């Protein structure tokens, strides 16, 4: 019951943010130079057709009304029509979204084990070798361009060694895993250092907390103190970063999907920008934001489950 109330309240709090997000995507569209409808229907369309579509999207109304029309259309899942494919944007997104979701989840699954191992290792031996390596990884992870790394990996693993396919998504589950390995690896190199750094500093802070000392004074021993006190407490700050990381991964997917020709949301977005398919760009942007928002909600809920201090 308490959990249910918490979810309901958090959802209610998310409404203004949702409105804001929709406002941003709307402004993006409204600021587009030129008449998107003209682009949508082409030059040869009759004035009647144009008038009809203008009416459907309320483009002749004052700007505020246009926004409400946009909101109303959003509610029923109508986020416009693709100019290139002449299909509803929602349909395009339904095709491409699972691929990106798969890629993001895959990356996370690949990321977590090395993150935990490296963070624990370096926290236990502060200022040792592991620490130096992780520092360098952090610096490199920040500086290495993902698209370049992706190209280099393509050449190395795809062309030279022939271990992995370098483009596409595959047709079967093992195929997906094989096809998306290099894209996931490319993004990982970017994300692992950030997560390791956060988890490591959280571990270090928690290890030096007073309650760890209490645990030692009770004769629990370093291992048990680490397992029962230090680790659970350091999960929280890392968890909060997770939403940010998912946003990073989604942003990164734009680049890796383009390089590896993975038919996901990122590639859809880039192709649509290049083809000036504005409704698709707008829709994709919105979906990206909604995904992050959902993850943020999930993280909040999870933190509330772990941390008894969190109340609304």
């Amino acid at each position, binding site marked *: 019951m308490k959990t249910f109330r918490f979810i309901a309240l958090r959802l209610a709090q998310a409404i203004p943010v949702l409105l804001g997000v929709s406002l941003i995507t709307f402004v993006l569209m409204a600021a587009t130079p030129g008449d998107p409808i003209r682009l949508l229907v082409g030059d040869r369309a009759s004035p009647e057709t144009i008038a009809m579509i203008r009416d459907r999207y309320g483009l002749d109304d004052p700007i505020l009304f246009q926004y409400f029309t946009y909101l109303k259309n959003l509610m029923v899942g109508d986020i416009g029509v693709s100019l290139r494919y002449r299909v509803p944007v929602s349909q395009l997104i339904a095709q491409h979204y699972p691929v990106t979701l798969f890629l993001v989840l895959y990356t996370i699954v690949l990321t977590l084990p090395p993150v935990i191992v490296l963070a624990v290792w370096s926290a236990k031996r502060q200022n040792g070798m592991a620490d130096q390596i992780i520092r360098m990884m952090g610096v490199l992870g920040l500086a290495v361009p993902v698209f370049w790394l992706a190209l280099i990996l393509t050449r190395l693993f795809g062309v030279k060694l022939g271990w992995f396919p370098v483009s596409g998504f595959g047709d079967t589950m093992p195929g997906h895993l094989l096809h998306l390995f290099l894209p996931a690896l490319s993004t990982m190199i970017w994300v692992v250092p950030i997560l390791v750094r956060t988890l490591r500093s959280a571990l270090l802070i928690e290890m030096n907390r*007073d309650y760890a*000392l*209490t645990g030692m*004074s*009770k*004769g*629990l021993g370093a291992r048990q103190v680490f397992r029962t006190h230090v680790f659970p407490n350091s999960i929280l700050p890392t968890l909060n970063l997770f939403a940010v990381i998912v946003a990073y991964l989604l942003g990164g997917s734009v680049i890796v999907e383009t390089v590896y020709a993975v038919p996901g949301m990122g590639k859809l977005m880039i192709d649509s920008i290049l083809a000036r398919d504005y409704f698709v760009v707008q829709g994709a942007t919105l979906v990206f934001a909604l995904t992050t928002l959902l993850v943020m909600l999930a993280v909040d809920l999870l933190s509330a489950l772990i*941390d008894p201090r969190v109340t609304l």
Partner: protein
Amino acid sequence: MTPLLSVKDLTVRFGATVAVDDVSFDLERGAALGIVGESGSGKSVTCRAVMRLLPPSAQISGSASFEGRDLLQMPETELNRVRGKRIAMIFQNPSSHLDPLMRIGDQVAQTLHKHTDLKGRAIRDEVLRLLDVVRIPDSERWAQAFPHQLSGGMKQRAMIAGALACQPDLLLADEPTTALDATVQKSVLDLLAQLRREQNLTMIFVSHDLGAVARVCDDLLVMRWSRLVESGPVSRVIDAPRHDYTRKLLASHPDRLKPRAFAPVGQGAPLVEARGIQIRYGSRMLSDWIAGREGGFMAVKQVDFAVRQGETLGIVGESGSGKSTLARSLVGLVKPYRGAIFFDGQPADPAGPGRIAYLREMQLIYQHPSEALSPRMTVQAAIAEPLRRHRLCPRDAVQGRVAELMSQVDLDPDLITRFPGQLSGGQCQRVAIARALAFDPRVLIADEVTSALDVTLQAQVIDLLLRLQKERGLTMIFISHDLAVIRRLCSSVIVMREGRIVEAGPTAKVFDTPAEAYTRALIDAIPHLKGDVA
């Protein structure tokens, strides 16, 4: 009979600094030993070194034999069978020493799981029994609670319960009452004294507070600058100290400070007056409005007081009593929700447009000396800032005025180019006082100025304030949780609790014949050097 614990030539080094230098002492079974010293004296380090709870950077030498076995040489696994089972420890800050994510009952049960064969139901019953022993009411319920749901005193009791779980032979208590309010502090001390009697507990009690130690212990070690300077039975050390430092420490104790004679204060109009002050934090929500509530949190509910020229008013209360909030409203840091402040008979608005003229007359000195100065400003810049900014003296006279102010607060002129990080707590406090004096104010408000300082420094700062008051005819408002300090400083006193004035009047009258039970409880809780001396 061999002593339970025998520490010999204990030395602890952190790199080049020696934290504990060649300390030896014996502890008989059933005895209670107090270790007293100021911050940095090495008393806590000594205590932790015995349990080998210091960070790896500490180099420990010497020996600490517990029933003939040297704790310092014992293998880790064997030591872990002693820790928690034979020797238990409680710490200063109960909030940070309990795991926030774990239920109280589970934390108490940890040692039982580790060191006994008890299982399930039996553990649960034992935990409830322990919570009863430390007098936590409704133990079933609180065992299920998380630390943040408990008050400070309850948390300390829970920690004691966890320490007592395996009926240890020796309890190490590291400043167990310092973070607590006076009345709570007293109840925890009483609990420790009672446990000692009932369970024949051997105890080491580390504290900066001689009074607290005197309440629980029979023997005393005095430490200074990582060395042992004196040891002996508590009563002997207090009555006939042998070392100069012990004498100084005793002389600085509020019990021994000379009560000052108060000049009779005229019956003239009050200089500062507060009428019907109410201060609210947070705002009124829609739900409050519907329910007809005031909303927010009332930190100060209806307070009136008046201070006459040259008088010293003390405001005492425990944490959350609203005393600091009240002080802050006098200098415009918080705006009263209702009520008015009068200065020299005129209505004053400390946060309004005329505030600069008002603040030149009324200055506040803050609690934490090192935080009250901007870390990026030198002593010179800090003291000169009000002089320059408000043009309190001609531009070319600033330099001289700063030097003059520094000498007034006994600051070494060489410190002028230092940053706060390079000064001691006492020096920072002097800089802050000099900066306030730059305004040449008529009223000085001191908000817990001594509570972050060691006893000997406390005494110095109080002396300084008294001297300045005499020289300049200052009116002072002195806010403190420490009744002993207030008693010796103030001519009249206000006792606050939960935002209200409980009792007010001339200090002597309030302290000698308190009318309210709460005031009496506060006075009873003052730790004295000796039980019988009031």
